[in-house]
């Protein structure tokens, strides 16, 4: 007995020593890392350096281009907020953003004749013209969406105009813009039947297009068709929508979309590099509800929420560059930090992001502002009250994610007890009959009966202890 105890003590001491040593090592490691990036100024201000010269680059297989993993999306250039030039692009700011980006290693700029009311190419061209042509790669697109521009002449005119707007004599990366929208019919109309794609292949041959690819949204048949003819077209790259929600849950966001896992996998099979768009899912991955945010912050306290999405998009080796439309210097700086160099997501982190995606989709909060325009409901439902309670619970994390969730019981109780407290039973969501007299009053465009039924189903699941 005594011996056992002694043994136990020694074990504990040993254990503590190991832990202590580990702590010292990790502190030292952290110290190294922090010294590079963070300093406390003499004024006592926390300052995080934006590293230059540490950007991660990937190679384009067909040309050997070294492309920065962070690409600049030029569809959100800053505009003047007011004054006589209100709404026009703020060229001065654009120049400084481009300068800063180049200085910190970004060399891929993605624009289109359609962006910024058609002004993006020119503004991007002006800003880049101030730098040597061999320091950056320009990607632009053949954005002949409107059927008036489907003719060969109109399409070629658009193509040639891009050269003038960008003030270049060759384009590094040219994309068929948004194939898949409009299905096979639009693909035929825009590129195949009018011979435009054949023309572009010739242009690549001639060296005026260094790489030819396409950006894909929508009908997966078009994606599959274009890849099945890879032998003929020899795609240098393909642009797809990829983020930790679209990876496995694209259909839940938009029924027309296809999981990025599939798209990326198809490209990998053929060795085609992927350019990533929508890494933040239209900004939805830049911020989360409180408890999802807390979970990410617990893992990386000082990293921004957006950085998780960028790291996710940059992690697959077959990704050439991740596009981000950076309007503000702060976003640019944060993204440069994320990619200088990229720290790929570990398996645990990938799991965490998948869980985050699931939770996010399961409990999208409702954009009710409580304006009461929908009230009074003729059947007595307290519409804003129900939405307020639901959003509050989502924000506080009192929404269990499943029966196995360790705080299931606590969250269930908080949700149900709180529900009865905030909304009298007769005014709860289960009394919504779906007459839809409310929805057209809603300035947020909420489909109120649909949301009521969703909340009602959720409450039923909780009450019945069903898997949610």
């Amino acid at each position, binding site marked *: 007995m005594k011996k056992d105890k002694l043994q136990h003590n020694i074990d504990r001491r040993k254990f503590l020593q190991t832990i202590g040593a580990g702590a010292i090592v990790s502190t030292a490691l952290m110290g190294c890392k922090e010294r590079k990036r963070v300093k406390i100024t003499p004024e006592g201000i926390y300052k995080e350096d934006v590293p230059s010269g540490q950007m991660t680059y990937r190679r384009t297989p067909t040309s050997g281009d070294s492309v920065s993993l962070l690409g600049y999306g030029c569809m959100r250039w800053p505009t003047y907020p007011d004054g006589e030039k209100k709404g026009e692009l703020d060229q001065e700011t654009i120049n400084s953003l481009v300068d800063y980006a180049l200085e910190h290693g970004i060399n891929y700029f993605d624009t289109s004749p359609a962006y910024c009311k058609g002004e993006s190419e020119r503004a991007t061209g002006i800003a880049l013209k101030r730098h040597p042509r061999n320091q950056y790669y320009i990607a632009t697109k053949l954005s002949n969406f409107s059927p008036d521009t489907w003719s060969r002449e109109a399409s070629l005119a658009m193509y040639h105009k891009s050269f003038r707007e960008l003030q270049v004599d060759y384009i590094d990366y040219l994309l068929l813009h948004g194939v898949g929208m409009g299905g096979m019919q639009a693909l035929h109309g825009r590129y195949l039947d009018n011979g435009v794609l054949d023309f572009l292949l010739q242009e690549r041959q001639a060296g005026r297009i260094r790489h030819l690819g396409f950006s894909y949204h929508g009908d997966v048949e078009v994606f599959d068709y274009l890849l099945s003819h890879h032998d003929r077209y020899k795609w240098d790259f393909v642009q797809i929508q990829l983020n930790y929600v679209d990876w496995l849950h694209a259909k839940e966001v938009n029924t027309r979309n296809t999981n990025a896992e599939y798209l990326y996998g198809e490209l990998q099979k053929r060795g085609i590099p992927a350019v990533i768009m929508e890494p933040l899912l239209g900004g939805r991955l830049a911020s989360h509800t409180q408890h999802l945010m807390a979970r990410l912050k617990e893992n990386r306290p000082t990293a921004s929420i957006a950085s998780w999405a960028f790291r996710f998009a940059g992690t697959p080796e077959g990704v050439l560059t991740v596009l981000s439309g950076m309007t503000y210097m702060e976003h640019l700086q944060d993204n440069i930090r994320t990619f200088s160099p990229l720290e790929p997501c570990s398996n645990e982190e990938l799991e965490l992001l998948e869980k985050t995606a699931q939770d996010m989709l399961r409990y999208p909060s409702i954009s009710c502002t409580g304006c009461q325009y929908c009230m009074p409901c003729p*059947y007595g439902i*307290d519409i804003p009250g129900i939405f307020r309670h639901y959003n509050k619970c989502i924000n506080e994390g009192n929404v269990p994610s499943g029966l196995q969730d360790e705080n299931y019981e606590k969250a269930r109780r908080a949700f149900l007890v709180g529900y*009865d*407290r905030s909304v*009298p039973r007769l*005014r709860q969501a289960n*009394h919504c009959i*779906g007459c839809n*007299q409310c929805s057209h009053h809603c300035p947020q465009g909420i489909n109120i009966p649909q949301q009521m039924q969703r909340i009602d189903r959720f409450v039923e699941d909780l009450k019945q202890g069903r898997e949610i």
Partner: protein
Amino acid sequence: MLRKIRIFFATLFLVGITILFLDFTGVTHAWLGWMAKVQLLPAILSMNVAVITFLLLLTLIFGRLYCSIICPLGIFQDIWAWSGRKVKKNRYKYSPAKNYLRYTLLALFIIAMIAGIGQVIALLAPYSTYGRMVNNLFSPLYNVINNVLAYGAERAESYAFYTTDVWIKSIFSLLLSVATFAILAVLAWRNGRTYCNTICPVGSLLGFVARFSLLRPTINTDKCNGCRRCERNCKASCIDIDSHTIDYSRCVACMDCIDNCRQGAITYKMRRHKNRVVEDVKTDTQRRDFLTVSALIATTPLVNAQGKVDGGLAIIEEKKIPTRTTRIVPPGAMSIRNYEQHCIACQLCVSACPNGVLRPSQQLATLLQPEASYERGYCRPECVKCSQVCPTGAIKPITTEDKSAIQVGHAVWIKENCVTLTDGVACDNCARHCPSAAIQMISSDSNNPQAPLIPAIDTERCIGCGACENLCPARPFSAIYVEGHLNHRTI
């Protein structure tokens, strides 16, 4: 010492059973449910041989200990008798047994059980009487206190307490309980166990058995000095010092006399000479028959429990109870017949029902026996609490899986009330909430594709849970209501 042990167990049982009836959260049922199941009448009705045997043996060995430590109504009376003795000492005196009255009532009771006259049983059964008092008198008080705590908890952002509805489930039941409470309190205060020894059928039955009990308080005539302290403090009035005898059919083995005797002349000991072996009293467990008398007592409107109404909220009219041809009894009851044969109206299921569905019947024929109605809530799929607590087998234990297939009634659509036609709005709330998908929306006019959709009920799939009736927007009468079934079916 023996008296202290008796008081200890009595307190345990009284508190336990009271909590059982007060607890609306259902947490304690798992721990205390057995206390209801060891009550004699529930055990007889549920044919619980183990409990019946145990109680008979207990009585054969120890006398009417059951009346002193297990029966909540007996303990309840003891409290009043004790208070009465505090005010005036030595207040009782020996009285001869009113055997004619006792056994007549016992006989009547047995006849009532055989004939299935539920009202008589509900009124006389001691455990039911106590249950009703707690349910009608103490429970509202308990709930109000709970609600005050919940109010505090809400402000403290705590979810420890939640608000529960306080409502009068039956005005008759309430008045009856007030009367019972008053009568029993006065009787017990003045004369101790009068009720137990003259009226209570369980007391009479056990009294008959206790005549032959093995252990009993015995007066040692050598030591007795005839001071009559024991006699004047015997709440059962069963000690006759003149003849130095104790009427063991009335003695509830409370052990007060042993403690009171300063001479040490009374001891609790084995009977001296063994009489003939007591033949087992034939307990009549024959089921009661179904009684069909359908006299109506005017249904009492429920008290409005709806909270305040803000300017932005439409006023919600109170729902009214539809007059059902056949009443609805909970799943697990098997049939109205089985239910009425077994239910002793103790109201334990009413206490346990978290959905405001069960309440005592107001009808003369089924007086006080709980029945279901759906204005306040409906019989939710995840809940089988009533079946778990029922001590008499009136509601047999079922699982939620069983429940999903037990048809206790079927829904009936009333075209004239349906808002799709009266208000001209789209509504499918009944169809959407039907747990057995027995309702589908169909066109009200097959020639007109724009015609409003109305519910069509598949009565074969309907289980009668009342979700449709409860959630129907039509008020005060729902456009869809549940009609009970005489025999429950598994579908």
